[in-house]
């Protein structure tokens, strides 16, 4: 594997209206290509990923006027897609299937004058037939299923709502330092605890934002990266984990996720240990996923994720900076592109006030479905010689 991220493009993000997801996607690719010091004519690979609006597809090639592509696909592993796209792009450039691959995600679920909850409610497809209908009449939906997962973790390991709140508070402190973040006002644990229930044990402030926008990265081979406009961010390690939880006794649902396998594989490929990791960008659709992913990656023992965050380790000034842009909770919600974009900024040393001092190894997660899909990427400003 010898690949690097050489371009980063983030559109206006958040409550940005009047633009479709394909509009954001095209904008993000243009920005990422320009950031790399390249032109659209240099791009010979395009990987696209759509969110809830499901309208970003391979037709983005025509919209961008890209000719004679050697690699083109729409990919979907939900929140794990950004890592999956990066893995596909990195493999492609390493083996010469393409030279310059743009990977893009965009979504536009929010409408002016509507709450973030309404953004999803209007698009939800309800299973009303056969076995999947049982979850519908049980009162399930994605947030409720995460609440069930979080409750199981709390019942098994003693994780508390205050510990989940510590995730939200720590990330808001990071967001205050990030001009790209939507929620920058300081947040207290009391405010977290007083926020309304969405699905108990999850408060409103345990849940991520809903954002319109797009983000893209440009990937090329590691040995070519140094000649481009910006400092390259090399891909050292990759992993995925898709547990396929059986709905039966013995299931680890809520306790251990695909991060355990995915993280171990990525660390092994990168030739590093958790102790070597300087900064961590985790998929935080809910506070709980930060806690369980820290455990599954091995930054603390199983069941210790809540106390680890509550002790302040992940906050600004802590021993393990986590979600340094505010994450999806306080920054912006672009699925797996939220942690990946922040990781690139940190690895480049571009993160301004929130820049961590040591940035040799950056670990990034993606989490999709109801903990069904996980991807891990390990990035570094330093290139490793291609390994057999």
């Amino acid at each position, binding site marked *: 594997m010898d690949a690097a991220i050489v371009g980063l493009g983030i559109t206006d993000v958040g409550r940005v209206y009047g633009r479709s997801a394909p509009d954001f996607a095209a904008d993000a690719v243009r920005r990422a290509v320009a950031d790399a010091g390249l032109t659209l004519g240099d791009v010979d690979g395009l990987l696209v990923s759509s969110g809830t609006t499901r309208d970003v597809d391979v037709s983005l090639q025509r919209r961008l006027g890209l000719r004679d592509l050697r690699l083109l696909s729409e990919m979907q592993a939900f929140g794990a897609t950004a890592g999956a796209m990066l893995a596909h792009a990195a493999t492609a450039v390493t083996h010469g299937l393409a030279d310059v691959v743009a990977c893009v995600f965009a979504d536009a679920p929010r409408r002016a004058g509507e709450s973030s*909850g309404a953004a999803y409610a209007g698009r939800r497809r*309800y299973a*009303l*037939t*056969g*076995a*999947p*209908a*049982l*979850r*519908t*009449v*049980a*009162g*399930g*939906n994605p*947030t*409720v299923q995460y*609440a*069930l*997962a979080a*409750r*199981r973790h709390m*019942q*098994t390991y003693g994780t508390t709502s205050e510990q989940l709140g510590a995730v939200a508070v720590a990330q808001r402190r990071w967001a205050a330092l990030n001009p790209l973040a939507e929620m920058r006002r300081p947040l207290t644990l009391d405010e977290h605890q007083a926020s*309304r*229930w*969405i*699905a*108990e*044990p*999850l408060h409103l402030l345990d849940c991520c934002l809903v954002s319109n926008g797009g983000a893209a990265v440009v990937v090329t081979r590691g040995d070519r990266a140094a000649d481009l406009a910006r400092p390259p961010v090399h891909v050292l390690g990759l992993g995925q984990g898709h547990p396929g939880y*059986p*709905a*039966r*006794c013995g*299931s680890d*649902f*809520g306790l251990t996720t695909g991060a355990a396998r995915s993280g171990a594989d990525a660390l092994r490929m990168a030739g590093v240990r958790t102790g070597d990791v300087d900064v961590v960008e985790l998929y935080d659709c809910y506070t709980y996923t930060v806690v369980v992913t820290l455990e599954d990656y091995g930054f603390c023992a199983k069941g210790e994720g809540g106390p680890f965050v509550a002790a302040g380790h992940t906050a600004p000034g802590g021993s393990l900076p986590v979600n340094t842009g505010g994450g999806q909770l306080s920054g912006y919600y672009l699925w797996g592109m939220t942690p990946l974009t922040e990781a690139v900024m940190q690895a480049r040393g571009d993160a301004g006030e929130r820049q961590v001092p040591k940035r040799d190894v950056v670990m990034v997660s993606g989490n999709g479905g109801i903990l069904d899909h996980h991807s891990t990427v390990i990035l570094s400003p330093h290139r490793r010689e291609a390994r057999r």
Partner: protein
Amino acid sequence: MTTPGPPIEADAATAPFFTAAARDELLLPRCTGCREWHAPDVTTCCGPLEWAASTARATLVTWAVVHTAPHPDFADAVAFRTAIVELVEGPWLQVRLTGTDEPVAGSPVRIAFAHPAEGASYPIGVLEGP
């Protein structure tokens, strides 16, 4: 009391399950090869599956209190509990949970059935003690 939530219907694969639910009986897929019991959505095991009667006794795995209606037809029903329960045969089932006790993981749950005015009958959980 009217049953909250949208009306649902069987498909070809689950017709026996919902027909049995209408007569207050819980059927689960069971493998005729290894004799393992499965959740209602499972269609593959080492041998052919057949529908078999469950004891309808379970314990609580996890639960949540739903405060934001997950479907418009639940708008008047929030807040209510939803739960994943583990049947004594092994499979998990997600059900609305009734009962006044404060739940904990491992609490006993009996499967009962909702018979809505419109649509198929389906299982619900009744918490039977802490």
